[in-house]
C-alpha cells in the first residue's frame, strides 16, 4: 500500500473501501433503506429463488441502490413461488409472487427506486414474515 498523502486521497480510498462493508453499514440502519426478503425454503429454492437472490444482491450493488437483501424461510405463499417481500422505509411490507429475473429487475427500478406499485403483488394476509 502506498502512503496516503492527502486528505482527498484518504477520502477517495474511504469511498472505495466503503463498498466492502456496505453490507454491514446497511445492516446498521435497516430502517432507512429497502429491505428485501427472499423466501428460500426448499420449495423456494426449487422454484429458482436462489437465482433471484443472487441477482438482487449483485444488481442492487451494481446500480448503487441501498437495500438489504436477506433470505428467509417459507413465506406461506407456496403457490406463488418464488416470492419476495419488500419493505420500503416507513411503509408496510409488500409481497411479490412468481418473481423472475425480469420481474426482479422491474421491482428494483420501479418499486424500490420510485415507489411505483407494479403487478404481481400478493394480497397481504396481515402478517409479516417475522411474525
Amino acid at each position: 500500500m502506498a502512503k496516503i498523502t492527502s486528505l482527498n486521497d484518504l477520502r477517495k480510498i474511504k469511498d472505495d473501501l466503503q463498498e466492502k462493508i456496505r453490507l454491514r453499514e446497511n445492516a446498521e440502519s435497516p430502517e432507512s433503506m429497502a429491505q428485501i426478503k427472499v423466501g428460500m425454503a426448499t420449495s423456494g429454492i426449487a422454484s429458482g429463488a436462489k437465482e433471484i437472490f443472487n441477482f438482487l444482491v449483485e444488481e442492487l450493488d451494481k446500480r448503487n441502490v441501498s437495500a438489504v437483501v436477506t433470505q428467509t424461510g417459507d413465506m406461506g405463499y407456496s403457490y406463488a413461488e418464488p416470492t419476495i417481500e419488500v419493505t420500503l422505509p416507513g411503509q408496510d411490507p409488500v409481497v411479490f409472487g412468481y418473481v423472475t429475473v425480469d420481474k426482479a429487475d422491474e421491482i428494483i427500478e420501479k418499486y424500490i427506486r420510485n415507489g411505483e406499485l407494479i403487478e404481481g403483488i400478493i394480497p397481504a394476509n396481515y402478517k409479516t414474515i417475522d411474525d
Partner: protein
Amino acid sequence: MATFKYHLLICGGTGCKASDSDGIITSLNKEIKEKGLENDVKVVTTGCFGFCEKGPIVKVLPDNTFYTQVTPGDAAEIIQEHIIKGRKVERLLYTDPETENHIADSKHMGFYQKQIRIALRNCGFIDPENLDEAISRDAYMALGKALTEMTPQEVIDEIKKSGLRGRGGGGFPTGLKWEFASKNEADQKYVVCNADEGDPGAFMDRSILEGDPHTVLEAMAICGYTMGADKGLIYIRAEYPLAIKRLKIAIDQAREYGLLGKNILGTDFNFDIELRYGAGAFVCGEETALIHSMEGERGEPTFKPPFPAESGYNGKPTNVNNVETFASVPVILLKGADWFSSIGTEKSKGTKVFALAGKINNVGLIEVPMGTTLREVIFEIGGGIKDGKKFKAVQTGGPSGGCLTEKHLDTPIDFDNLIAEGSMMGSGGMIVMDEDDCMVSVAKFYLDFTVEESCGKCTPCRIGNKRLYEILDKITKGEGTMEDLDNLKNLSNVIKDTALCGLGQTSPNPVLSTLDNFWDEYVAHVTDKKCPAGACTDLMNYNIIEENCVGCTACARACPVNCITGERKMPHHIDQAACIKCGTCMEKCKFNAIELI
C-alpha cells in the same frame, strides 16, 4: 472482487476468545469451504460486542441475526440452516429473560436498545486488524480535517465546546487539558494514552483497544497536533496481550499508510507512537505515577503542581488522557461539538461506557448517554437481577467509588451526580449486588484491593487503609465494637482529607458510602453479631433442624472436632462453641437437616 452476501461477525475480544471464539472461526471457515460458499460468505473477527454474558457471539449480516453462546460445533448448523436454507438457528438465539421469547435481532434486545455507541462505535463491527475496514468507517478522517482545515486552537475549541470530560475517573474537561499542554513551550512534548486499566471489573479500555485501535491512534495524533507534540506513548498493561498485539498491528499499518510518521497526509505534521508497558500497579492509573513508571521508576505519584502539562515525561510537557476519552475525540471533530453536546446532561456530555457485572443477567460492556438512570442500566439493559433475587446495591467507580442503593436508582448517571451521592464515575465499573451480598464484606473487598495496590508513599494510604481493612475484618468476624464504627468514620474522613493522590483520597469511599447507606447492617454485625445477608461465615451457625434429622449419625461421624452429639435415630445437636464452621456436616447430611443461619 466478490460481493459477499453474508458477513459473519465473530467477537475476537478477550472474553469470547477465552470461550474459544477462534475455534468457531476455524469451524465456520471449514464449513464455508466445504459448501463452496467462499465467495458468498465472509467471516470477520471483530472486537467486543459488549454482551459478554452470552459470549461467544456470532452476528450474521445483513439480517442482524445475533447468535449467543456459540460453540465450534454449532458452525455446521449455522451454515447449513441459516446461510443455505435461510432458517434461523432458533436454539442459538437470545432468549428474553422476561418473555422467554427468542429474539433474533440485536436491535430488539433490551441490552442494546438504550445504548448509543460513540466510543465503542466500531467495536464488534470492523476487523480491528484491518486498517481498510477502519478507513471505510472514517478512521483518520478527523485527523485529516484537523490538519488541513483547522488550526490547533480551533480543534481545542471544538473539544472544549463539546464538553468532553476525561473518562478515566477524574472527569476533567479534556479541551482545557489540551489547552494547558499546548501553552507550555518546549523543544519536546508528549501525548500519553493511559491504557493501564486497573479497576477490578472494568474492561472498556481493553475492549476499545482490541476492537478499534485506530481510533485511539488517530485521537492521539490529533492531540499531538493541538499541543505541538510529535511523539505519543501508550502505557498499556502487560496483562493485555491481545490489545498489545492489535495495537502493534495498527501502529504498523498506520505507519505503512503514512497516517503515522513524517508529513502526515502531506502536511508538515509529524507524529509517531510507541508502546510502554505497565507491570501491574493500579496506582499507575494516576498520571504522575504513570509518568514515573514510564521513566523506569517506581510508580509513585508526586504532588501536583507541577502538572504533567508543565513537566511530565522526562520533564517535558505531557498530556495524558485515557483510552475512552481519546476514542470519543474523532467523532466529535467529524460530527461537531454541537452534536456531541446534544447528548448527555448539562455538565456531562456525550456517552459513557460501563462494564456491567455482578449479580445481573446481562453482564457486559455498554455505552449509554450521560444522564441514563441506574434503573435503566440495571433493569432494562442489564436485564435485572440474576435468579430473580432482590436488588441491593450497585457499586460504581471501582475502588474509588461507593455503593448506591434502591433510592438512587432514578438518579441520572453523570460525573457530578455520582459524586454528590458519595460515589464516583471512575473508569466505569458497575457491579450489581443482590440480597446475598454483605455490604461490610464488599467494603472489605475494596479495601483489600486498595491495601494491595497502595504505593505506600503517604501515611494515610499506607497505614490508614490497612487499619480500615483491619477494622472491617474485625467487624465481619463479629469482633467489632461501636467505637470501631466511629473510628472507621474518622479514619475514612482523614484519609480522604490527607492522602497524596487520587487513589488514596478516594479509597475510603466504599467504606463511607456503605456506612451511610447500610448503617444498620454494620450495627447488626457489631451488636447482634449477625450478618443480615448471610455472607459472613464467622457470624453464621450450623444448626440441625430437628424435624428433618433422622439420627443417622453421618454428621457426627464426619465432624472433625466431634462437636455433634445425639443418640442414634434421635435428633442430633451441634455444640456451637466448639464448632469450627467447616461445613462438613452439611455436606454429609442426606436429609437436608442442617441449615446455616
